[in-house]
Protein backbone atom coordinates (compact mmCIF):
# COMPACT_ATOMS: atom_id res chain seq x y z
CA UNK A 1 0.00 0.00 0.00
CA UNK A 2 1.25 3.49 -0.79
CA UNK A 3 1.91 6.02 1.92
CA UNK A 4 3.48 9.47 1.75
CA UNK A 5 6.06 11.57 3.60
CA UNK A 6 3.43 14.21 4.31
CA UNK A 7 0.94 11.72 5.75
CA UNK A 8 3.44 9.83 7.87
CA UNK A 9 5.13 12.83 9.52
CA UNK A 10 4.35 12.79 13.26
CA UNK A 11 3.02 9.22 13.23
CA UNK A 12 3.75 7.31 16.44
CA UNK A 13 6.53 4.74 16.55
CA UNK A 14 5.80 1.69 18.71
CA UNK A 15 7.94 -1.23 19.87
CA UNK A 16 6.50 -4.59 18.80
CA UNK A 17 8.21 -6.28 21.77
CA UNK A 18 6.96 -3.96 24.54
CA UNK A 19 4.00 -2.14 22.92
CA UNK A 20 5.56 1.09 24.24
CA UNK A 21 5.47 4.28 22.19
CA UNK A 22 9.09 5.23 21.44
CA UNK A 23 8.47 8.57 19.76
CA UNK A 24 7.12 10.05 16.56
CA UNK A 25 8.30 10.05 12.95
CA UNK A 26 10.30 13.26 12.41
CA UNK A 27 12.03 12.58 9.07
CA UNK A 28 12.60 9.84 6.54
CA UNK A 29 16.18 9.37 5.32
CA UNK A 30 16.30 8.46 1.64
CA UNK A 31 18.92 6.51 -0.28
CA UNK A 32 18.64 8.42 -3.57
CA UNK A 33 20.71 5.90 -5.56
CA UNK A 34 18.50 2.99 -4.43
CA UNK A 35 15.39 5.22 -4.55
CA UNK A 36 14.14 3.92 -1.25
CA UNK A 37 13.79 4.90 2.41
CA UNK A 38 16.97 3.94 4.27
CA UNK A 39 15.90 4.88 7.80
CA UNK A 40 13.24 6.55 9.91
CA UNK A 41 14.34 9.45 12.13
CA UNK A 42 12.49 9.52 15.47
CA UNK A 43 12.43 12.65 17.58
CA UNK A 44 14.24 15.92 16.97
CA UNK A 45 17.41 17.69 17.98
CA UNK A 46 19.97 15.97 20.20
CA UNK A 47 17.53 13.23 21.18
CA UNK A 48 16.94 12.19 17.57
CA UNK A 49 17.43 8.48 16.88
CA UNK A 50 17.33 6.32 13.76
CA UNK A 51 15.79 3.01 12.89
CA UNK A 52 16.94 1.34 9.70
CA UNK A 53 14.11 0.29 7.40
CA UNK A 54 15.11 -3.40 7.76
CA UNK A 55 14.50 -3.19 11.52
CA UNK A 56 10.82 -2.20 11.12
CA UNK A 57 8.17 -4.86 11.51
CA UNK A 58 5.61 -2.71 9.71
CA UNK A 59 5.08 0.82 8.40
CA UNK A 60 1.35 0.99 9.10
CA UNK A 61 -1.27 3.68 8.58
CA UNK A 62 -1.65 4.26 12.35
CA UNK A 63 1.75 3.34 13.73
CA UNK A 64 5.26 2.52 12.64
CA UNK A 65 6.23 -0.74 14.36
CA UNK A 66 9.87 -1.48 15.21
CA UNK A 67 11.19 -4.84 16.38
CA UNK A 68 12.20 -3.57 19.83
CA UNK A 69 13.84 -0.60 21.52
CA UNK A 70 17.26 -1.99 20.65
CA UNK A 71 16.60 -1.14 17.00
CA UNK A 72 16.91 2.57 17.81
CA UNK A 73 20.38 4.05 17.60
CA UNK A 74 21.93 7.54 17.49
CA UNK A 75 23.06 8.96 14.12
CA UNK A 76 26.28 7.24 13.04
CA UNK A 77 27.87 9.58 10.51
CA UNK A 78 27.64 13.10 9.06
CA UNK A 79 24.90 12.18 6.66
CA UNK A 80 22.79 10.63 9.41
CA UNK A 81 23.42 13.64 11.70
CA UNK A 82 22.27 15.95 8.89
CA UNK A 83 19.19 13.78 8.44
CA UNK A 84 18.47 13.93 12.19
CA UNK A 85 18.64 17.73 11.95
CA UNK A 86 16.15 17.65 9.08
CA UNK A 87 18.69 19.05 6.62
CA UNK A 88 18.11 16.21 4.14
CA UNK A 89 14.31 16.25 4.30
CA UNK A 90 12.99 15.90 0.73
CA UNK A 91 9.71 17.70 1.30
CA UNK A 92 10.18 21.44 0.90
CA UNK A 93 13.50 21.00 -0.95
CA UNK A 94 14.11 22.65 -4.32
CA UNK A 95 14.04 20.30 -7.31
CA UNK A 96 16.79 20.81 -9.89
CA UNK A 97 17.15 19.04 -13.20
CA UNK A 98 20.57 17.55 -13.93
CA UNK A 99 20.82 20.37 -16.52
CA UNK A 100 20.84 22.97 -13.75
CA UNK A 101 17.31 24.34 -14.15
CA UNK A 102 14.86 24.63 -11.25
CA UNK A 103 11.71 22.55 -11.56
CA UNK A 104 9.89 23.67 -8.40
CA UNK A 105 9.67 22.46 -4.82
CA UNK A 106 9.11 18.89 -3.63
CA UNK A 107 5.68 19.02 -1.95
CA UNK A 108 5.41 15.34 -1.04
CA UNK A 109 6.88 11.92 -1.78
CA UNK A 110 4.88 8.71 -2.04
CA UNK A 111 6.36 5.31 -1.25
CA UNK A 112 5.43 1.66 -0.99
CA UNK A 113 4.86 1.08 2.74
CA UNK A 114 5.69 -2.64 2.36
CA UNK A 115 9.15 -2.17 0.83
CA UNK A 116 10.16 1.44 1.44
CA UNK A 117 10.64 1.94 -2.30
CA UNK A 118 9.88 5.49 -3.45
CA UNK A 119 7.02 5.74 -5.98
CA UNK A 120 6.46 9.38 -6.96
CA UNK A 121 7.79 12.83 -6.15
CA UNK A 122 5.03 15.44 -6.07
CA UNK A 123 6.06 18.84 -7.45
CA UNK A 124 3.06 21.18 -7.49
CA UNK A 125 0.46 19.49 -9.65
CA UNK A 126 2.99 17.13 -11.25
CA UNK A 127 3.83 13.63 -10.15
CA UNK A 128 7.35 12.63 -11.14
CA UNK A 129 8.28 8.93 -11.08
CA UNK A 130 10.94 8.16 -8.47
CA UNK A 131 13.03 6.57 -11.23
CA UNK A 132 13.98 10.13 -12.23
CA UNK A 133 15.69 10.75 -8.90
CA UNK A 134 19.47 11.06 -9.32
CA UNK A 135 20.54 12.49 -5.99
CA UNK A 136 19.40 14.44 -2.97
CA UNK A 137 21.10 16.56 -0.36
CA UNK A 138 20.83 19.69 1.72
CA UNK A 139 20.71 22.01 -1.30
CA UNK A 140 18.56 20.22 -3.84
CA UNK A 141 16.84 17.10 -5.07
CA UNK A 142 18.30 16.34 -8.51
CA UNK A 143 16.09 14.80 -11.20
CA UNK A 144 17.04 13.52 -14.64
CA UNK A 145 16.65 15.67 -17.73
CA UNK A 146 13.47 13.93 -18.90
CA UNK A 147 11.65 15.98 -16.24
CA UNK A 148 12.41 19.31 -17.91
CA UNK A 149 9.33 21.00 -19.35
Amino acid sequence: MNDSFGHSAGRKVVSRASAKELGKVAHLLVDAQQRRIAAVVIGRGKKAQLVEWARLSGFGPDAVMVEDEGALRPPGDDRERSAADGKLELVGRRALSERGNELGTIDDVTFDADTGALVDLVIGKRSVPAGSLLGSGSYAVVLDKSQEP
Partner: protein
Amino acid sequence: MSLLVTASQIRGLPVVTVRGGEDIAEVRDVIYDPEAGRLVGLTLNRRGFLAGRTHDVLPVEAIHAIGQHAVMVLDASSLVDPKDAPDDVAHPATERNVLGDDVLTEGGTSLGKVTDLVLLVGSSGEVVGYQIDKADGGQGYIPLPAQLSVSGVALVVPTITEEFVQGDLVGLGATVDEFRHRLGLT
Protein backbone atom coordinates in the same frame (compact mmCIF):
# COMPACT_ATOMS: atom_id res chain seq x y z
CA MET B 1 15.66 27.50 -30.59
CA SER B 2 18.54 27.47 -28.15
CA LEU B 3 18.43 28.97 -24.66
CA LEU B 4 21.30 31.35 -23.99
CA VAL B 5 22.89 32.93 -20.94
CA THR B 6 25.62 35.54 -20.51
CA ALA B 7 28.79 34.87 -18.52
CA SER B 8 27.68 37.46 -15.95
CA GLN B 9 24.50 35.45 -15.37
CA ILE B 10 26.66 32.39 -14.59
CA ARG B 11 28.76 34.23 -11.99
CA GLY B 12 27.42 33.47 -8.53
CA LEU B 13 25.50 30.35 -9.59
CA PRO B 14 25.84 27.44 -7.15
CA VAL B 15 27.87 24.41 -8.25
CA VAL B 16 25.66 21.43 -7.31
CA THR B 17 26.46 17.71 -7.30
CA VAL B 18 24.06 15.50 -9.26
CA ARG B 19 24.63 12.51 -6.98
CA GLY B 20 24.75 14.37 -3.68
CA GLY B 21 22.38 17.32 -4.13
CA GLU B 22 24.90 19.54 -2.31
CA ASP B 23 26.06 23.04 -3.29
CA ILE B 24 29.82 22.61 -3.04
CA ALA B 25 30.97 25.96 -4.50
CA GLU B 26 29.78 28.91 -6.52
CA VAL B 27 31.00 30.38 -9.78
CA ARG B 28 33.50 33.21 -9.42
CA ASP B 29 34.30 33.70 -13.08
CA VAL B 30 34.54 31.99 -16.44
CA ILE B 31 37.86 31.00 -18.07
CA TYR B 32 37.49 31.49 -21.78
CA ASP B 33 39.55 30.56 -24.83
CA PRO B 34 38.56 33.08 -27.53
CA GLU B 35 40.49 31.36 -30.36
CA ALA B 36 38.55 28.15 -29.78
CA GLY B 37 35.36 30.06 -28.95
CA ARG B 38 34.68 27.99 -25.88
CA LEU B 39 34.78 27.98 -22.14
CA VAL B 40 37.72 26.02 -20.72
CA GLY B 41 36.69 26.18 -17.07
CA LEU B 42 35.30 28.11 -14.13
CA THR B 43 37.00 29.71 -11.14
CA LEU B 44 35.16 29.29 -7.86
CA ASN B 45 34.20 30.77 -4.53
CA ARG B 46 33.26 28.83 -1.42
CA ARG B 47 29.66 28.83 -0.26
CA GLY B 48 28.09 29.70 3.06
CA PHE B 49 29.94 30.90 6.15
CA LEU B 50 33.30 29.81 4.71
CA ALA B 51 32.66 32.15 1.75
CA GLY B 52 35.70 33.48 -0.09
CA ARG B 53 37.92 32.47 -2.93
CA THR B 54 39.03 28.89 -3.31
CA HIS B 55 41.95 27.95 -5.53
CA ASP B 56 40.12 24.92 -6.86
CA VAL B 57 38.92 25.19 -10.45
CA LEU B 58 36.30 23.37 -12.48
CA PRO B 59 37.60 22.28 -15.91
CA VAL B 60 34.90 22.34 -18.58
CA GLU B 61 35.27 18.57 -19.15
CA ALA B 62 34.05 18.01 -15.57
CA ILE B 63 30.92 20.16 -16.00
CA HIS B 64 27.81 18.00 -16.29
CA ALA B 65 25.63 20.93 -17.40
CA ILE B 66 25.29 24.70 -17.14
CA GLY B 67 21.71 25.70 -16.40
CA GLN B 68 19.81 28.85 -15.56
CA HIS B 69 19.92 28.16 -11.81
CA ALA B 70 22.97 25.97 -11.21
CA VAL B 71 26.15 24.51 -12.68
CA MET B 72 25.91 20.74 -12.27
CA VAL B 73 28.84 18.37 -11.60
CA LEU B 74 28.69 14.66 -10.85
CA ASP B 75 30.42 14.86 -7.47
CA ALA B 76 32.99 16.81 -5.45
CA SER B 77 35.90 15.16 -7.29
CA SER B 78 35.02 17.37 -10.30
CA LEU B 79 36.67 20.32 -8.53
CA VAL B 80 40.42 20.12 -8.93
CA ASP B 81 43.54 21.83 -7.64
CA PRO B 82 45.02 24.01 -10.41
CA LYS B 83 48.18 21.85 -10.39
CA ASP B 84 46.07 18.88 -11.50
CA ALA B 85 44.12 20.90 -14.06
CA PRO B 86 44.85 21.27 -17.80
CA ASP B 87 47.31 24.12 -18.44
CA ASP B 88 44.80 26.47 -20.12
CA VAL B 89 42.57 26.22 -17.03
CA ALA B 90 45.32 26.52 -14.43
CA HIS B 91 47.14 29.40 -16.15
CA PRO B 92 44.69 31.29 -18.34
CA ALA B 93 46.51 33.87 -20.46
CA THR B 94 45.34 37.32 -19.42
CA GLU B 95 45.65 38.72 -22.95
CA ARG B 96 42.85 36.33 -23.85
CA ASN B 97 40.34 38.46 -22.01
CA VAL B 98 38.11 39.74 -24.82
CA LEU B 99 36.04 42.08 -22.65
CA GLY B 100 36.51 45.61 -23.96
CA ASP B 101 37.91 44.40 -27.28
CA ASP B 102 36.89 46.19 -30.44
CA VAL B 103 34.84 43.96 -32.78
CA LEU B 104 36.03 44.61 -36.35
CA THR B 105 34.59 43.04 -39.48
CA GLU B 106 36.93 41.74 -42.18
CA GLY B 107 35.74 44.75 -44.17
CA GLY B 108 37.01 47.13 -41.49
CA THR B 109 33.76 48.24 -39.82
CA SER B 110 33.68 48.43 -36.03
CA LEU B 111 30.53 46.83 -34.63
CA GLY B 112 31.26 47.88 -31.03
CA LYS B 113 33.08 46.68 -27.92
CA VAL B 114 32.66 43.28 -26.23
CA THR B 115 30.87 43.54 -22.86
CA ASP B 116 30.03 39.89 -22.17
CA LEU B 117 30.10 36.32 -23.49
CA VAL B 118 26.95 34.44 -24.47
CA LEU B 119 26.81 30.69 -23.82
CA LEU B 120 24.47 27.92 -24.84
CA VAL B 121 22.57 26.60 -21.81
CA GLY B 122 22.77 22.85 -21.21
CA SER B 123 25.93 22.38 -23.22
CA SER B 124 29.31 22.27 -21.58
CA GLY B 125 30.34 25.76 -22.40
CA GLU B 126 30.06 26.52 -26.09
CA VAL B 127 30.32 30.29 -26.50
CA VAL B 128 27.99 31.21 -29.36
CA GLY B 129 28.11 34.99 -29.26
CA TYR B 130 29.16 38.24 -27.62
CA GLN B 131 27.19 40.99 -26.00
CA ILE B 132 28.52 44.31 -27.32
CA ASP B 133 28.16 48.02 -26.73
CA LYS B 134 27.33 49.01 -30.27
CA ALA B 135 29.48 51.60 -32.03
CA ASP B 136 26.32 53.64 -32.72
CA GLY B 137 25.11 53.34 -29.11
CA GLY B 138 22.98 50.78 -27.28
CA GLN B 139 23.48 47.12 -26.50
CA GLY B 140 23.57 44.37 -29.08
CA TYR B 141 24.41 40.69 -29.50
CA ILE B 142 26.50 39.15 -32.27
CA PRO B 143 26.76 35.46 -33.18
CA LEU B 144 30.22 33.93 -33.47
CA PRO B 145 31.72 31.47 -35.87
CA ALA B 146 33.54 28.62 -34.13
CA GLN B 147 36.89 30.32 -34.74
CA LEU B 148 38.08 33.86 -35.09
CA SER B 149 41.23 35.90 -34.82
CA VAL B 150 41.89 37.78 -31.60
CA SER B 151 44.72 40.09 -30.59
CA GLY B 152 43.88 41.24 -27.07
CA VAL B 153 42.64 44.65 -28.21
CA ALA B 154 40.50 43.66 -31.19
CA LEU B 155 38.88 40.66 -32.77
CA VAL B 156 38.00 40.13 -36.40
CA VAL B 157 34.67 38.66 -37.45
CA PRO B 158 33.23 37.84 -40.89
CA THR B 159 31.65 40.82 -42.65
CA ILE B 160 28.20 39.21 -42.75
CA THR B 161 28.15 39.41 -38.91
CA GLU B 162 26.91 42.97 -39.44
CA GLU B 163 23.61 41.61 -40.78
CA PHE B 164 23.16 39.45 -37.70
CA VAL B 165 23.47 41.98 -34.88
CA GLN B 166 20.54 41.31 -32.53
CA GLY B 167 18.83 43.43 -29.89
CA ASP B 168 18.39 40.68 -27.29
CA LEU B 169 19.36 37.13 -26.31
CA VAL B 170 16.17 35.63 -27.75
CA GLY B 171 16.99 37.15 -31.13
CA LEU B 172 20.55 35.85 -30.90
CA GLY B 173 19.32 32.34 -30.03
CA ALA B 174 17.12 32.37 -33.13
CA THR B 175 19.88 33.55 -35.43
CA VAL B 176 22.97 31.53 -34.37
CA ASP B 177 22.16 28.50 -36.51
CA GLU B 178 21.32 30.58 -39.57
CA PHE B 179 24.51 32.61 -39.15
CA ARG B 180 26.67 29.48 -39.00
CA HIS B 181 24.78 28.01 -41.94
CA ARG B 182 25.51 31.12 -43.99
CA LEU B 183 29.20 30.76 -43.15
CA GLY B 184 29.06 27.18 -44.37
CA LEU B 185 29.88 25.85 -40.89
CA THR B 186 26.87 23.57 -40.54
